[in-house]
């Protein structure tokens, strides 16, 4: 069990041995198992962990805003020494906004769509801030204050009269930040404030938070599953796994000398912007769900260094051998001392694969996996027309992996959907594996049938990419029947098993429903479904964006291997330039519906020509 290290004086926030359980189903299911952490005044603390590890719940418990059905079963939360658990709900509510405030993940849902931004900021202001004059004077004072707050987060005064839907994601996140800070809290908890943003905005928002923290001298808790964000923005980092803290310490130390195999594995799985590795070492398996966690180390099942004791001994935080005392670097690994330097990040082999050269001749349209010329697409709506694609030219050769990068809304998905026959272009030519698609109308069923063996697509959201009512076998069999005609049952079953094997899933998974699969497993089934059609081109629209690093690494390796064995081409859409580096032969950068730069991946990343590409590279977080 993790125990907090001695911290001088009273910290701003002190969580000690916090336990939470889901009580909805009668028997309580433990969700958090003794989490402790501290945040000092003016300090920035990051909490990282894979999805489902309990980061959000910890913070909600700290705020006193646990969802129905989750209850505190032990531990304390202290703010400035006051035990919040003993406060009556009313007093506790009074602390929110003024002492501590919470910023949520999704800027698109966090603000009330029907209220102006100014109103929402004003609602959080302290009641006593303005002179007690009535009516008009008071309103003017509030307005002036709102405008000041907007300026503080770098927004124009005009934003005050705007409704959230009139602003971009980054701007909304700034408005939300201003609203969260309206009560001038001593502590701001930001729960994944950047996950929904694209690279450029991500950097800007993190910078803004850091700046505000410094300026206001407030404590900041940054919750994230993005290692790079945690290491770049946190003074100290806590690593949370399956409801327990495995390691905590200064960001720089954790990054360079991790004290726990889990941290080390995460770091190893992280692709790099500057180097391509021969292989991304992926963690096998996934986070054990609540209710199926044993008494020992929750990571034991996935750990390469597991010993017998690991599965039975309760966790205990101990200083990492050889680490400085202040601030402390603690690990919960039993074998930390024994493993010692063995825990340091694996030295990954850097490769410089040739891929495509600058001067390779263009293949003929019929020979390319994907051939786009002058592709144009305008979306019309009552609010006005929006050009999503602007005379786009793009070629994907057979067997090539092309990465398509660009800011949010630059038209990447639109392009992918047109290529997959799910959307139509207004004009331009689109030839997919030799099958020409007619602009101006969506393909007919017959055309889509022909297209099926040329192109398949894997989408971003793992949770809706499979029909929840069908088991994996049925999904794959349907794909087989649709593209290759009806097969005898035995043959179909064999084929399903082969497909599952290709994506490294056991054949027994054929009988599982999607609900029984993790996100990464679902994406692998989605890939298997696409492979069933034996396409010449596989389009992956941010297929790894929603996954944790460890799972992302599994999938990236899988894709690379499959491309080599099956020989299909890949159009890989991503925000993340490190992924581009790791996977792509060729990189294409889009901006506002236009292709602004393309070339061999290494060239584009090392010697960007277009300012937008450079901006994206700058926005990339580095620890």
């Amino acid at each position, binding site marked *: 069990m993790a125990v907090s290290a001695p911290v001088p004086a009273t910290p701003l926030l002190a969580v000690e041995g916090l336990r939470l359980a*889901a009580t*909805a189903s009668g028997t309580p299911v433990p969700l958090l198992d003794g989490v402790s952490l501290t945040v000092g005044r003016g300090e920035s603390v990051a909490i990282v962990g894979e999805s489902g590890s309990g980061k959000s719940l910890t913070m909600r418990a700290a705020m006193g805003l646990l*969802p*129905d*059905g989750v209850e505190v079963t032990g531990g304390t939360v202290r703010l400035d020494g006051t035990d919040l658990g003993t406060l009556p709900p009313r007093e506790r509510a009074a602390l929110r906004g003024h002492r501590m405030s919470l910023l949520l993940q999704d800027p698109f849902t966090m603000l009330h769509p029907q209220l102006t931004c100014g109103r929402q900021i004003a609602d959080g202001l302290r009641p006593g801030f303005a002179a007690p004059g009535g009516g008009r004077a008071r309103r003017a004072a509030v307005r002036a204050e709102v405008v000041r707050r907007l300026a503080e987060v770098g927004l124009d005064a005009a934003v005050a009269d705007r409704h959230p839907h009139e602003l971009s994601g980054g701007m909304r996140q700034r408005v939300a930040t201003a609203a969260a800070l309206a009560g001038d809290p001593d502590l701001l908890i930001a729960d994944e404030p950047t996950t929904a943003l694209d690279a450029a905005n991500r950097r800007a928002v993190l910078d803004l938070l850091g700046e505000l923290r410094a300026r206001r001298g407030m404590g900041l808790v940054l919750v994230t599953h993005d290692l790079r964000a945690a290491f770049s923005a946190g003074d100290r980092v806590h690593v949370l796994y399956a409801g327990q803290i495995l390691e905590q310490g200064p960001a720089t130390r954790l990054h360079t000398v991790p004290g726990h195999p889990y941290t080390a594995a995460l770091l190893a799985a992280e692709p790099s912007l500057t180097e391509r590795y021969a292989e991304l070492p992926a963690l096998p398996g996934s986070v054990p769900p609540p209710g199926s966690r044993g008494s020992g180390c929750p990571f034991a099942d996935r750990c390469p260094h597991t010993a017998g004791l690991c599965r039975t001994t309760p966790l205990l935080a101990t200083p990492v051998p050889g680490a400085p005392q202040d601030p402390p670097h603690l690990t919960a690994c039993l074998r930390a001392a024994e493993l010692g330097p063995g825990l340091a990040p694996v030295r990954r082999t850097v490769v410089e694969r040739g891929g495509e050269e600058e001067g390779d001749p263009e293949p003929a349209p019929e020979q390319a996996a994907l051939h786009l010329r002058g592709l144009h697409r305008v979306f019309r709506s009552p609010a006005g027309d929006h050009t999503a694609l602007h005379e786009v030219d793009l070629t994907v050769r057979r067997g090539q992996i092309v990465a398509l990068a660009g800011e949010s809304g630059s038209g990447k998905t639109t392009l992918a*959907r047109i290529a*997959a*026959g*799910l959307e139509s272009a207004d004009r331009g030519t689109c030839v997919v594996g030799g099958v020409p698609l007619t602009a101006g109308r969506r393909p007919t*069923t017959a055309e*889509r*049938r*022909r*297209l*099926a063996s040329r*192109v*398949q*697509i894997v*989408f*971003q*959201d793992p949770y*809706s*990419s*499979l*029909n*929840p*009512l069908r088991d994996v076998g049925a999904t794959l069999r*349907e*794909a087989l029947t*649709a*593209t290759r005609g009806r097969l005898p049952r035995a043959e179909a079953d064999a084929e399903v098993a082969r497909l599952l094997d290709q994506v490294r899933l056991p054949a027994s998974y054929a009988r599982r429903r999607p609900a029984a699969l993790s996100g990464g497993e679902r994406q692998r089934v*989605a890939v298997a*479904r*696409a492979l069933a*059609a034996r396409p010449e081109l596989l389009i992956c629209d941010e297929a790894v964006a929603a996954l944790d690093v460890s799972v992302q690494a599994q999938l990236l390796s899988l894709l690379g291997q499959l491309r080599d064995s099956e020989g299909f081409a890949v159009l890989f859409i991503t925000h993340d330039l490190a992924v581009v580096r790791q996977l792509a032969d060729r990189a294409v950068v889009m901006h506002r519906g236009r292709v602004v730069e393309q070339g061999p991946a290494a060239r584009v990343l090392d010697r960007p020509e277009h300012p937008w590409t450079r901006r994206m590279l700058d926005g990339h977080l580095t620890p």
Partner: protein
Amino acid sequence: MTRVRRSRRPGRLLTAACATVLALLALAACFGTALLPGWDRQDLALGAAMPDATHWLGTDALGRDIAQLLVAGARSTLAGAALVALGAMVLGNALGLLAGYLGGRVDAVVHRLADLLLALPALLVTLVVAGIGGGGYALAVGVLVVLTSPGDIRLVRSAVREQRHLPYVEAAETLGLSRATVAVRHIWPNVLPVVVANTLLNFAGAVVSLSALSFLGLGVPPGAPDWGRLLADNRTLLYDNPSAALAPALLIVVAAVALNLLGDRLHEAFTDRGRS
């Protein structure tokens, strides 16, 4: 934020009670007349008699035993309502799937039509059309089917529109499956639980609407042991033999409550599944 129910037990009991009530009603509807061959025996000399040992709820003006009539009447009462609900379900699902999946002009037309029909007071329209057209009960049921369907249309349409762009649907499309196949095999089964729940609610609504029509004189043919009709006919007995009027009223309310509760519960269960 997920909200989770506190305790399931009272809810389960209630659901079980509803299911039992409905099972009994269904039993009565299927075998009521077979079990009580003498349900339509008249005894004019008896007239509207008070309850006694042989006639638990008394008799109606024709001297028929009210208790037996009520049992035998389950069929005629529930059949009409079931017809309305099922008809609306078939019509609503067909149009809803079509509109939701095809989109474009078909969708615009169907959507407008559904909105229009939904805004009309169903009972009034039925009254006017069946009353003026003179088609009697059959026409009334037909009109009610049409006027009940927009709820289903909207439900299915919006569910389909919600699902139409979900990755699993689009993946099925890229596999070259026809639109009809995708709509029927992939989308519809996912919408089905809501549809079933809604059909139960429509069923309940139809029981009430048809009894209202009987009250206004447009219901089932005279003499039929329909509860609405019995209630309307025995209303004048209310102060002599209250059970003659109250029993059919109670049956209508109980049947409708059971259907409504079960429908609500199903709806809830489905949304729960959708949330988790």
